Protein backbone atom coordinates (compact mmCIF):
# COMPACT_ATOMS: atom_id res chain seq x y z
CA UNK A 1 0.00 0.00 0.00
CA UNK A 2 1.27 3.49 -0.86
CA UNK A 3 2.39 5.52 2.12
CA UNK A 4 0.26 8.55 2.93
CA UNK A 5 2.00 11.86 2.18
CA UNK A 6 2.61 13.81 5.38
CA UNK A 7 2.68 17.57 5.64
CA UNK A 8 3.51 20.15 8.28
CA UNK A 9 0.74 22.71 8.25
CA UNK A 10 0.65 23.50 11.96
CA UNK A 11 2.79 22.33 14.91
CA UNK A 12 0.05 20.02 16.19
CA UNK A 13 0.33 17.90 13.03
CA UNK A 14 3.12 16.11 14.90
CA UNK A 15 2.70 14.42 18.28
CA UNK A 16 5.01 15.46 21.09
CA UNK A 17 6.82 12.12 20.63
CA UNK A 18 7.36 12.84 16.94
CA UNK A 19 8.60 16.33 17.79
CA UNK A 20 11.08 14.84 20.24
CA UNK A 21 12.34 12.50 17.48
CA UNK A 22 12.84 15.56 15.25
CA UNK A 23 14.75 17.41 17.96
CA UNK A 24 17.00 14.42 18.60
CA UNK A 25 17.68 14.14 14.87
CA UNK A 26 18.36 17.90 14.57
CA UNK A 27 20.92 17.65 17.37
CA UNK A 28 22.56 14.63 15.72
CA UNK A 29 22.85 16.54 12.43
CA UNK A 30 24.30 19.50 14.29
CA UNK A 31 26.98 17.43 15.97
CA UNK A 32 27.86 15.42 12.86
CA UNK A 33 26.76 17.32 9.71
CA UNK A 34 29.02 15.31 7.40
CA UNK A 35 27.05 12.13 8.06
CA UNK A 36 23.89 13.80 6.71
CA UNK A 37 25.39 15.78 3.83
CA UNK A 38 24.20 13.30 1.17
CA UNK A 39 20.84 12.30 2.72
CA UNK A 40 18.82 14.28 0.19
CA UNK A 41 20.97 13.73 -2.87
CA UNK A 42 18.71 13.63 -5.93
CA UNK A 43 15.89 15.42 -4.07
CA UNK A 44 14.50 18.82 -5.01
CA UNK A 45 12.99 21.34 -2.61
CA UNK A 46 10.63 23.92 -4.15
CA UNK A 47 10.43 27.18 -2.21
CA UNK A 48 7.23 28.98 -3.21
CA UNK A 49 7.26 32.39 -1.55
CA UNK A 50 4.18 34.41 -2.42
CA UNK A 51 5.39 37.19 -0.16
CA UNK A 52 8.89 38.36 0.70
CA UNK A 53 11.02 36.59 3.26
CA UNK A 54 14.75 36.46 3.57
CA UNK A 55 15.47 34.53 6.70
CA UNK A 56 12.97 31.68 6.37
CA UNK A 57 13.58 31.10 2.66
CA UNK A 58 17.36 31.11 3.03
CA UNK A 59 17.09 28.82 6.04
CA UNK A 60 15.10 26.29 4.00
CA UNK A 61 17.42 26.56 1.02
CA UNK A 62 20.56 26.25 3.16
CA UNK A 63 18.99 23.25 4.93
CA UNK A 64 18.34 21.41 1.65
CA UNK A 65 21.75 22.26 0.20
CA UNK A 66 23.47 21.01 3.36
CA UNK A 67 21.61 17.72 2.88
CA UNK A 68 22.96 17.40 -0.67
CA UNK A 69 19.69 18.25 -2.41
CA UNK A 70 18.78 20.95 -4.91
CA UNK A 71 16.33 23.83 -4.86
CA UNK A 72 14.02 25.68 -7.23
CA UNK A 73 11.25 28.20 -6.74
CA UNK A 74 10.38 31.87 -6.62
CA UNK A 75 10.74 34.57 -4.02
CA UNK A 76 8.01 36.87 -5.32
CA UNK A 77 5.10 35.76 -7.50
CA UNK A 78 4.99 38.73 -9.91
CA UNK A 79 7.39 37.14 -12.39
CA UNK A 80 5.46 33.83 -12.53
CA UNK A 81 2.23 32.52 -14.06
CA UNK A 82 0.57 33.35 -10.72
CA UNK A 83 0.60 36.99 -11.88
CA UNK A 84 -1.50 35.81 -14.86
CA UNK A 85 -4.11 34.51 -12.43
CA UNK A 86 -3.14 30.86 -12.02
CA UNK A 87 -4.91 29.20 -9.10
CA UNK A 88 -2.99 27.93 -6.10
CA UNK A 89 -4.18 24.38 -6.79
CA UNK A 90 -2.81 24.43 -10.37
CA UNK A 91 0.53 25.84 -9.22
CA UNK A 92 0.82 23.15 -6.56
CA UNK A 93 -0.12 20.33 -8.96
CA UNK A 94 2.60 21.47 -11.36
CA UNK A 95 5.28 22.07 -8.75
CA UNK A 96 4.65 18.69 -7.15
CA UNK A 97 5.63 17.15 -10.49
CA UNK A 98 8.89 19.11 -10.56
CA UNK A 99 9.91 18.67 -6.93
CA UNK A 100 9.96 16.19 -4.04
CA UNK A 101 8.96 18.57 -1.24
CA UNK A 102 7.51 22.10 -1.11
CA UNK A 103 8.01 24.91 1.40
CA UNK A 104 5.42 27.61 0.87
CA UNK A 105 4.76 31.06 2.29
CA UNK A 106 1.49 32.75 1.35
CA UNK A 107 -0.26 35.90 2.58
CA UNK A 108 -3.64 34.19 2.97
CA UNK A 109 -4.53 32.20 6.08
CA UNK A 110 -5.13 28.52 5.42
CA UNK A 111 -3.23 28.56 2.11
CA UNK A 112 -0.87 25.76 3.18
CA UNK A 113 -3.83 23.56 4.12
CA UNK A 114 -5.35 24.10 0.68
CA UNK A 115 -1.97 23.35 -0.96
CA UNK A 116 -1.79 20.06 0.96
CA UNK A 117 -5.13 19.01 -0.55
CA UNK A 118 -3.75 19.25 -4.09
CA UNK A 119 -0.14 18.15 -3.59
CA UNK A 120 1.34 14.71 -4.18
CA UNK A 121 4.49 15.68 -2.24
CA UNK A 122 4.91 16.94 1.34
CA UNK A 123 3.96 20.58 1.97
CA UNK A 124 5.72 22.57 4.67
CA UNK A 125 3.91 25.70 5.78
CA UNK A 126 6.53 28.46 5.84
CA UNK A 127 3.95 30.98 7.04
CA UNK A 128 0.32 31.60 6.01
CA UNK A 129 -0.77 35.17 6.74
CA UNK A 130 -1.22 35.83 10.44
CA UNK A 131 -2.16 32.21 11.04
CA UNK A 132 0.72 29.76 11.54
CA UNK A 133 4.48 29.52 11.12
CA UNK A 134 5.22 25.99 12.34
CA UNK A 135 8.90 25.72 11.43
CA UNK A 136 9.58 28.88 13.47
CA UNK A 137 7.83 27.10 16.33
CA UNK A 138 10.05 24.03 15.81
CA UNK A 139 13.10 26.32 16.02
CA UNK A 140 11.70 27.92 19.19
CA UNK A 141 10.98 24.57 20.82
CA UNK A 142 14.42 23.17 19.97
CA UNK A 143 16.04 26.30 21.42
CA UNK A 144 14.09 26.01 24.68
CA UNK A 145 14.68 22.26 24.87
CA UNK A 146 18.42 22.55 24.34
CA UNK A 147 19.13 25.69 26.35
CA UNK A 148 16.67 25.18 29.23
CA UNK A 149 17.06 21.42 29.48
CA UNK A 150 13.45 20.62 28.56
CA UNK A 151 10.10 21.94 27.43
CA UNK A 152 8.31 21.79 30.79
CA UNK A 153 8.46 23.84 34.02
CA UNK A 154 9.33 27.20 32.47
CA UNK A 155 8.08 30.72 33.14
CA UNK A 156 7.84 32.17 29.65
CA UNK A 157 7.55 35.91 29.12
CA UNK A 158 6.32 36.87 25.67
CA UNK A 159 6.65 40.54 24.84
CA UNK A 160 5.52 42.85 22.06
CA UNK A 161 2.76 42.52 19.50
CA UNK A 162 0.84 39.55 20.84
CA UNK A 163 -2.27 40.28 18.81
CA UNK A 164 -0.95 39.95 15.25
CA UNK A 165 2.21 37.90 15.84
CA UNK A 166 1.69 34.44 14.36
CA UNK A 167 4.90 33.11 15.95
CA UNK A 168 3.50 34.03 19.36
CA UNK A 169 0.20 32.21 18.77
CA UNK A 170 1.98 29.09 17.51
CA UNK A 171 4.43 29.14 20.42
CA UNK A 172 1.72 29.41 23.07
CA UNK A 173 -0.23 26.57 21.45
CA UNK A 174 2.87 24.40 21.18
CA UNK A 175 4.14 25.04 24.72
CA UNK A 176 0.67 24.40 26.15
CA UNK A 177 1.19 20.71 25.34
CA UNK A 178 4.00 20.46 27.89
CA UNK A 179 3.63 20.34 31.66
CA UNK A 180 3.78 23.12 34.19
CA UNK A 181 4.64 26.07 31.97
CA UNK A 182 3.48 29.54 33.02
CA UNK A 183 3.04 32.44 30.61
CA UNK A 184 3.58 36.11 31.38
CA UNK A 185 2.17 38.05 28.45
CA UNK A 186 3.67 41.53 28.13
CA UNK A 187 2.00 43.95 25.71
CA UNK A 188 0.00 47.16 25.50
CA UNK A 189 -3.70 46.39 25.99
CA UNK A 190 -4.44 47.11 22.34
CA UNK A 191 -2.00 44.40 21.25
CA UNK A 192 -2.86 41.67 23.77
CA UNK A 193 -3.39 38.05 22.67
CA UNK A 194 -6.58 37.22 20.74
CA UNK A 195 -9.53 36.02 22.78
CA UNK A 196 -9.47 32.57 21.14
CA UNK A 197 -5.94 31.96 22.46
CA UNK A 198 -7.14 32.88 25.97
CA UNK A 199 -10.25 30.70 25.77
CA UNK A 200 -9.31 27.81 23.50
CA UNK A 201 -5.69 27.32 24.53
CA UNK A 202 -4.84 28.81 27.94
CA UNK A 203 -8.09 28.52 29.90
CA UNK A 204 -9.22 25.28 28.27
CA UNK A 205 -5.94 23.60 29.28
CA UNK A 206 -5.83 25.25 32.75
CA UNK A 207 -2.55 26.96 31.97
CA UNK A 208 -1.42 29.64 34.36
CA UNK A 209 -0.96 33.06 32.74
CA UNK A 210 -0.97 36.74 33.55
CA UNK A 211 -1.11 39.78 31.32
CA UNK A 212 1.02 42.83 32.13
CA UNK A 213 2.11 46.02 30.36
CA UNK A 214 5.80 46.37 31.22
CA UNK A 215 8.87 44.12 31.02
CA UNK A 216 10.50 45.71 34.05
CA UNK A 217 7.61 44.60 36.30
CA UNK A 218 8.17 40.89 35.64
CA UNK A 219 11.61 40.24 34.12
CA UNK A 220 13.00 38.90 37.40
CA UNK A 221 10.51 35.99 37.30
CA UNK A 222 11.28 34.78 33.78
CA UNK A 223 13.16 31.69 32.60
CA UNK A 224 12.64 32.75 28.99
CA UNK A 225 11.92 36.15 27.50
CA UNK A 226 10.60 35.95 23.95
CA UNK A 227 10.73 39.36 22.27
CA UNK A 228 8.76 40.33 19.17
CA UNK A 229 8.71 43.41 17.01
CA UNK A 230 6.13 46.04 17.81
CA UNK A 231 5.21 48.52 15.12
CA UNK A 232 4.37 52.13 15.84
CA UNK A 233 1.34 52.02 13.54
CA UNK A 234 -0.21 49.28 15.69
CA UNK A 235 -0.77 51.76 18.53
CA UNK A 236 -4.08 53.55 18.60
CA UNK A 237 -2.56 56.93 19.31
CA UNK A 238 0.77 58.75 19.52
CA UNK A 239 0.37 59.41 23.25
CA UNK A 240 0.10 55.70 24.08
CA UNK A 241 3.07 54.95 21.85
CA UNK A 242 5.24 57.50 23.59
CA UNK A 243 4.12 56.30 27.02
CA UNK A 244 4.88 52.66 26.37
CA UNK A 245 7.52 52.41 23.64
CA UNK A 246 10.48 52.07 26.00
CA UNK A 247 8.75 49.29 27.89
CA UNK A 248 9.09 47.06 24.85
CA UNK A 249 12.79 47.57 24.29
CA UNK A 250 15.07 45.13 26.03
CA UNK A 251 18.35 46.75 27.06
CA UNK A 252 21.13 45.95 29.52
CA UNK A 253 19.48 48.01 32.23
CA UNK A 254 16.45 45.71 32.19
CA UNK A 255 18.63 42.62 31.68
CA UNK A 256 20.32 43.35 35.04
CA UNK A 257 17.12 42.31 36.80
CA UNK A 258 16.81 39.04 34.83
CA UNK A 259 17.87 35.64 36.18
CA UNK A 260 21.39 34.44 35.40
CA UNK A 261 20.06 31.50 33.42
CA UNK A 262 17.25 33.35 31.63
CA UNK A 263 17.42 33.09 27.84
CA UNK A 264 16.47 35.87 25.41
CA UNK A 265 14.71 34.74 22.23
CA UNK A 266 13.43 36.56 19.16
CA UNK A 267 12.11 35.14 15.86
CA UNK A 268 14.11 37.83 13.93
CA UNK A 269 14.36 40.12 12.10
CA UNK A 270 14.58 42.62 14.93
CA UNK A 271 14.50 46.35 14.51
CA UNK A 272 15.22 48.05 17.82
CA UNK A 273 13.30 45.96 20.36
CA UNK A 274 16.51 44.35 21.58
CA UNK A 275 19.40 46.77 21.98
CA UNK A 276 22.58 45.67 20.20
CA UNK A 277 24.42 45.79 23.55
CA UNK A 278 22.39 42.74 24.64
CA UNK A 279 24.00 40.67 21.84
CA UNK A 280 27.15 40.38 23.94
CA UNK A 281 25.30 39.02 26.97
CA UNK A 282 25.62 35.23 27.20
CA UNK A 283 21.84 34.99 27.75
CA UNK A 284 21.17 36.36 24.24
CA UNK A 285 20.04 33.28 22.32
CA UNK A 286 18.36 34.62 19.18
CA UNK A 287 21.17 33.88 16.74
CA UNK A 288 21.51 30.41 18.22
CA UNK A 289 17.73 30.11 17.72
CA UNK A 290 18.16 30.92 13.99
CA UNK A 291 20.90 28.29 13.75
CA UNK A 292 18.67 25.71 15.43
CA UNK A 293 15.99 26.72 12.91
CA UNK A 294 18.11 25.53 10.02
CA UNK A 295 18.99 22.21 11.70
CA UNK A 296 15.41 21.48 12.65
CA UNK A 297 14.33 22.20 9.05
CA UNK A 298 16.96 19.69 7.90
CA UNK A 299 15.55 17.11 10.32
CA UNK A 300 12.01 17.90 9.19
CA UNK A 301 12.81 17.41 5.50
CA UNK A 302 14.60 14.13 6.22
CA UNK A 303 11.52 12.93 8.11
CA UNK A 304 8.93 14.10 5.57
CA UNK A 305 10.93 12.69 2.64
CA UNK A 306 11.38 9.39 4.50
CA UNK A 307 15.14 9.30 3.87
CA UNK A 308 16.09 8.41 7.46
Amino acid sequence: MEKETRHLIEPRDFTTEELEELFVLANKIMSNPEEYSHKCEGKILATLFYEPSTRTRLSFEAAMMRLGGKILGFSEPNSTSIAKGESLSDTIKMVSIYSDIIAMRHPKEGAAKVASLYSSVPIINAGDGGHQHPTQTLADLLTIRNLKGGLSNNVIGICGDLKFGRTVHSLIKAMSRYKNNKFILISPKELSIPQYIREEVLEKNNIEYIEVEKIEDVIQELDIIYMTRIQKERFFNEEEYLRLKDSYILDMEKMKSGKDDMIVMHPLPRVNEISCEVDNDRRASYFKQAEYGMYVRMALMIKLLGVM
Partner: protein
Amino acid sequence: MLEITSIKNGIVIDHIESGFGIKIFNYLKLDEEGCSVALIINADSKKYGKKDIIKIENYKNIDYTILALLSPKVTICEVENEVIVKKITPKLPKKVDNIIKCKNPNCITSVENYVPHSFTLVDEENARYKCEYCDVITKLS
Protein backbone atom coordinates in the same frame (compact mmCIF):
# COMPACT_ATOMS: atom_id res chain seq x y z
CA MET B 1 -55.33 35.16 12.63
CA LEU B 2 -54.51 33.52 9.30
CA GLU B 3 -55.63 29.88 9.13
CA ILE B 4 -53.72 27.25 7.16
CA THR B 5 -55.27 23.82 7.13
CA SER B 6 -53.31 20.89 8.50
CA ILE B 7 -51.57 18.51 6.13
CA LYS B 8 -52.44 14.85 5.73
CA ASN B 9 -48.98 13.39 5.05
CA GLY B 10 -45.68 15.25 5.05
CA ILE B 11 -43.68 17.49 7.34
CA VAL B 12 -44.10 20.72 9.24
CA ILE B 13 -40.98 22.78 9.85
CA ASP B 14 -41.82 24.95 12.86
CA HIS B 15 -40.05 27.56 14.99
CA ILE B 16 -38.09 28.94 12.07
CA GLU B 17 -36.53 32.24 13.02
CA SER B 18 -38.61 35.02 11.55
CA GLY B 19 -37.27 35.93 8.10
CA PHE B 20 -35.51 32.60 7.59
CA GLY B 21 -38.54 30.71 6.18
CA ILE B 22 -37.87 31.99 2.68
CA LYS B 23 -34.18 30.99 2.99
CA ILE B 24 -35.13 27.41 3.89
CA PHE B 25 -37.76 27.41 1.13
CA ASN B 26 -35.11 28.48 -1.40
CA TYR B 27 -32.40 26.15 -0.05
CA LEU B 28 -34.76 23.14 -0.36
CA LYS B 29 -35.89 24.40 -3.80
CA LEU B 30 -39.46 23.74 -2.77
CA ASP B 31 -40.79 25.64 -5.76
CA GLU B 32 -39.32 22.90 -7.98
CA GLU B 33 -40.62 19.92 -5.98
CA GLY B 34 -44.16 19.87 -7.30
CA CYS B 35 -45.70 19.27 -3.87
CA SER B 36 -48.12 21.52 -1.98
CA VAL B 37 -46.24 23.94 0.24
CA ALA B 38 -47.43 26.57 2.72
CA LEU B 39 -44.86 29.16 3.75
CA ILE B 40 -46.13 31.15 6.70
CA ILE B 41 -44.18 34.26 7.59
CA ASN B 42 -44.31 36.19 10.88
CA ALA B 43 -46.68 33.86 12.69
CA ASP B 44 -47.19 34.63 16.40
CA SER B 45 -44.95 32.63 18.70
CA LYS B 46 -45.21 32.44 22.49
CA LYS B 47 -41.50 31.62 22.76
CA TYR B 48 -39.94 33.87 20.13
CA GLY B 49 -42.52 36.59 19.42
CA LYS B 50 -42.58 35.90 15.69
CA LYS B 51 -41.65 32.82 13.71
CA ASP B 52 -41.92 31.30 10.24
CA ILE B 53 -43.48 27.89 9.47
CA ILE B 54 -43.30 25.68 6.39
CA LYS B 55 -45.81 22.89 5.76
CA ILE B 56 -44.97 20.48 2.98
CA GLU B 57 -47.40 17.82 1.72
CA ASN B 58 -45.98 14.41 0.73
CA TYR B 59 -42.34 15.25 1.30
CA LYS B 60 -39.82 13.70 3.67
CA ASN B 61 -36.35 13.39 2.22
CA ILE B 62 -34.62 16.22 4.01
CA ASP B 63 -31.33 16.34 5.88
CA TYR B 64 -32.78 17.81 9.07
CA THR B 65 -29.36 18.85 10.42
CA ILE B 66 -29.06 21.32 7.54
CA LEU B 67 -32.29 22.96 8.70
CA ALA B 68 -30.76 23.48 12.15
CA LEU B 69 -27.84 25.17 10.45
CA LEU B 70 -30.10 27.58 8.58
CA SER B 71 -32.20 28.35 11.67
CA PRO B 72 -30.88 26.76 14.88
CA LYS B 73 -34.19 26.54 16.84
CA VAL B 74 -36.30 24.70 14.23
CA THR B 75 -38.44 21.69 15.09
CA ILE B 76 -39.79 19.22 12.58
CA CYS B 77 -43.04 17.27 12.83
CA GLU B 78 -43.56 14.25 10.60
CA VAL B 79 -47.25 13.81 9.84
CA GLU B 80 -49.04 10.65 8.72
CA ASN B 81 -52.81 10.55 8.23
CA GLU B 82 -53.10 13.95 9.90
CA VAL B 83 -51.37 12.68 13.04
CA ILE B 84 -47.92 13.82 14.22
CA VAL B 85 -45.94 10.58 14.37
CA LYS B 86 -42.55 12.05 15.13
CA LYS B 87 -41.27 15.34 16.52
CA ILE B 88 -37.63 16.11 15.91
CA THR B 89 -35.35 18.83 17.22
CA PRO B 90 -32.40 18.52 14.85
CA LYS B 91 -28.84 18.81 16.12
CA LEU B 92 -26.28 20.92 14.36
CA PRO B 93 -24.08 18.92 11.96
CA LYS B 94 -20.52 18.27 13.12
CA LYS B 95 -19.10 19.16 9.72
CA VAL B 96 -20.49 21.52 7.11
CA ASP B 97 -19.41 22.06 3.53
CA ASN B 98 -20.46 24.95 1.31
CA ILE B 99 -23.40 26.22 3.34
CA ILE B 100 -21.83 28.89 5.50
CA LYS B 101 -18.96 31.06 4.30
CA CYS B 102 -15.83 32.14 6.15
CA LYS B 103 -16.05 35.80 7.13
CA ASN B 104 -12.29 36.26 7.52
CA PRO B 105 -11.17 38.48 4.61
CA ASN B 106 -7.67 37.01 4.93
CA CYS B 107 -8.87 33.41 4.59
CA ILE B 108 -7.65 31.56 1.51
CA THR B 109 -11.29 30.78 0.62
CA SER B 110 -11.78 34.51 -0.09
CA VAL B 111 -9.51 34.32 -3.15
CA GLU B 112 -9.44 30.69 -4.31
CA ASN B 113 -13.10 30.26 -5.15
CA TYR B 114 -12.97 26.53 -6.01
CA VAL B 115 -12.01 25.65 -2.43
CA PRO B 116 -15.00 24.27 -0.51
CA HIS B 117 -16.02 26.33 2.53
CA SER B 118 -15.55 23.67 5.21
CA PHE B 119 -16.37 24.09 8.89
CA THR B 120 -16.25 21.99 12.05
CA LEU B 121 -18.65 22.49 14.96
CA VAL B 122 -16.70 23.65 18.03
CA ASP B 123 -19.48 24.90 20.33
CA GLU B 124 -22.92 23.35 19.95
CA GLU B 125 -24.59 25.48 22.62
CA ASN B 126 -23.66 28.76 20.95
CA ALA B 127 -23.72 27.38 17.38
CA ARG B 128 -20.08 28.28 16.67
CA TYR B 129 -18.17 26.74 13.76
CA LYS B 130 -14.43 26.85 12.99
CA CYS B 131 -13.12 27.31 9.45
CA GLU B 132 -11.05 24.27 8.40
CA TYR B 133 -8.42 26.49 6.79
CA CYS B 134 -7.90 29.66 8.83
CA ASP B 135 -9.42 28.49 12.19
CA VAL B 136 -11.52 31.65 12.50
CA ILE B 137 -14.77 30.99 14.36
CA THR B 138 -18.13 31.91 12.86
CA LYS B 139 -21.25 32.13 15.00
CA LEU B 140 -24.54 31.24 13.38
CA SER B 141 -27.22 33.85 13.89
